[in-house]
C-alpha cells in the first residue's frame, strides 16, 4: 500500500484512556499511513522526540481526562523550537470541563496552535479525510 505520510499517536499527560488512540492508530494504518503509536500516558516531549526521529507529518493526540489544556500548554511553541514548525497538530477527546461547550474548546485549542480539534464520538474517518486534505494542501503549498 502507498505510504501517505507518518503520524504520531498517543494519549497525552497521565491519561490512560487508550481505546480511542488505538482505534485512531488502526484506522490510520488501514488508510495507508505509517503510524508511530506511543500509546497511553505519553509526555508532550515524547511526541516531539518521536516526530523529530521519524520526520512525522502529523500528530494525533488524544485526551479524555480533561487536562489536555495543561498538558499541551505551549505545545506549538515547543514544536517550533524543535524544528517541527510544519507538523500538523490534531487533538481530540474531552478537552474541557463541560462536554457541551465544544465550540469554546475548539477555539481555545486553535488559539494554542492546533490545526484540527475534535469532540468525543467523532467518526475516525472524518479525521482521516481531514488529514488527507490538509496534507495534500500542505504539499501543494511547498515550493
Amino acid at each position, binding site marked *: 500500500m502507498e505510504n501517505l505520510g507518518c503520524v504520531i499517536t498517543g494519549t497525552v499527560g497521565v491519561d490512560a484512556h487508550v481505546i480511542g488512540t488505538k482505534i485512531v492508530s488502526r484506522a490510520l494504518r488501514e488508510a495507508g499511513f505509517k503510524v508511530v503509536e506511543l500509546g497511553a500516558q505519553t509526555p*508532550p516531549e515524547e511526541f516531539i522526540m518521536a516526530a523529530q526521529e521519524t520526520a512525522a507529518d502529523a500528530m494525533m493526540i488524544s485526551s479524555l*481526562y480533561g487536562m489536555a489544556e*495543561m498538558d499541551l500548554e*505551549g505545545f506549538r511553541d515547543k514544536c*517550533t*523550537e*524543535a*524544528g517541527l514548525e510544519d507538523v500538523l497538530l490534531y487533538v481530540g477527546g*474531552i478537552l474541557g*470541563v463541560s462536554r457541551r461547550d465544544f465550540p469554546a474548546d475548539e477555539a481555545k485549542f486553535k488559539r494554542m496552535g492546533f490545526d484540527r480539534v475534535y469532540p468525543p464520538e467523532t467518526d475516525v474517518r472524518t479525521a482521516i479525510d481531514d488529514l488527507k486534505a490538509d496534507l495534500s494542501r500542505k504539499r501543494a503549498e511547498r515550493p
Partner: protein
Amino acid sequence: MGSKRLFVDFGSTFTKLVAFELEAEELLARVQVPSTVDEDVTIGLEQAFDLLAESVPLGQEERRQTVACSSAAGGLRVVCVGLVPEYTTEAGRRAALGAGAKIVGSYSFDLAESELREIQETAPDIVLLTGGTDGGNKKVISHNAAMLARSGPGVTNIIVAGNKSAYDEVETLFSGSGKNVIYTSNVMPEIGVLEVAAANHEIRNLFIARITEAKGIGRARSMIADVSMPTPAAVLEAAKLLADGTNGTPGIGELLLVDVGGATTDVYSVAKGAPTSSSVRLLGLPEPYAKRTVEGDLGLFHNLDTLKTIAGSEPLPEDFEEAVEAMCRENSVPEGEQQTECHLLLSKIAVHSAVDRHVGSLKQVITPNGEVTVQRGKDLTQLQWVVGAGGPVSFSADPVNVLEGARFERDMPMLLKPKEPEWLLDREYVLFALGLLAQSEPEKALKLMKKYIVHL
C-alpha cells in the same frame, strides 16, 4: 605575602575595598570612596587603598594580590536573541542573569530590521544568540546570525548557544563579519531541559578577557591581580557557598538572598523549589537551582518613581514626597527621623516587590476531575533562611522590618514566599568579597561568612 586578602567592588557610585585577615578569620576593615570609573578607575582605587592604609598596614604585595569585581560602567550589558519567548529566549536570559549580567534587550523569532537597529543602538557588551533545540529549528538562528553578521559597530561580541546542528551554517554566516563570535553548547538542548552552565561560563570569560578592558576597568589590572567577575556573579557565588558549603564543611542549607541597591534590587535563591504538596503539578521551564532575578525598576535611588507608585497603595507617612526628594538629591544615607522612616518604607517595598516577582506561584485549574493546582516557578514556602544584603538593608535602622517584605502573606496565598523564615544580615556589606574569596579559599570564605552574616 601575609594572610591579608583585599577585595574591591567597582560600583557605579562607590569603589568599595574590603580587607580580611585569613589566619585570624577576621574582617580588618571596609572602606569606600566615590567611583572614578568615568575618569580613571585607578584614581579611586588608589584613594581606597590610601584610606584603608590609615587603619590597616598594607604592603605593596598585598595590594597587588587584590581581586576585584565590577558593576560599573553600566555593568555587563547583554542582549538575548532567541526563538520562542518562553523557551530559548528565556533560557538565554537565565544564563545571562546567572552570569551576573544586566539584560538590556530580549528578542524572539526572526529579527526585523528595526530590531537590529535597536540592538546596534543599545550597543550591548554581548549578544547571546540562542534558538532551537539540538537538531531542532535551524531557520531562525541562521536568519538572526545573518542579521547580526551585517550589524554595525554596536555589536561586537556574540555568544552562540543554540541548536548545534545550525552551527556550520551560522559559522559561515559570521565568517568575515569581523565580530568576535564564541560557540558554546545549547542553553536548551531538549524541550524542557535547561543547561545554562556553559553559556554562563563563556559570558564570564568574555567579561574578563575583553569587556573590562573595553570599559576602562581593566586599567586596574596594572595595580591589582584581576577583575574576575561582575559583582552580581560574586554575590551569587557567595550565596551558593553559604547554602551548599564546601566538600568538607556543610553550608546552612537552601536560602533566599535579597540585595537592595541604588539602581536595582537583585534576588538570588539557592533552592530547588519543588512543589511542597504532592497534588501540585509543575509547569513551565525548569528553574535553575541557583537563580538570580534582577528588578531594574526597583533601585532605591535611581527608580524612586516606581517605588512611589507601588507605595501609593499603602498608607504613607506625612511629607513622604518631600523626604524622598531630599533623599534623592543627597543620594546617601538618610538623615533624621523622617528620612529614615521613608527609607525604611521604600526598602521594604523594594524587597516585597522583588521577592514577589522572584518566587513561584500557584493557580487553581478546574478540570472534569475536580480542581487541580498548578505551580510555576519555585516553591520557597518551606525555606529557612532569608539573607538581607546591600547598603539600604545592611545599614538600615530596622533590617528585620525591611526583610519582612520577603515573608509569605496570608492574603496572597498563591505567592510561594517563605512562611517561617529566619533572617540573616550581611551587616558589614562584605558578601561580594566573600564570593570572590570563595574562588580561591572556599573554607575560609565559609567560615568568615558564618561569622559576618549575622542572625537577626
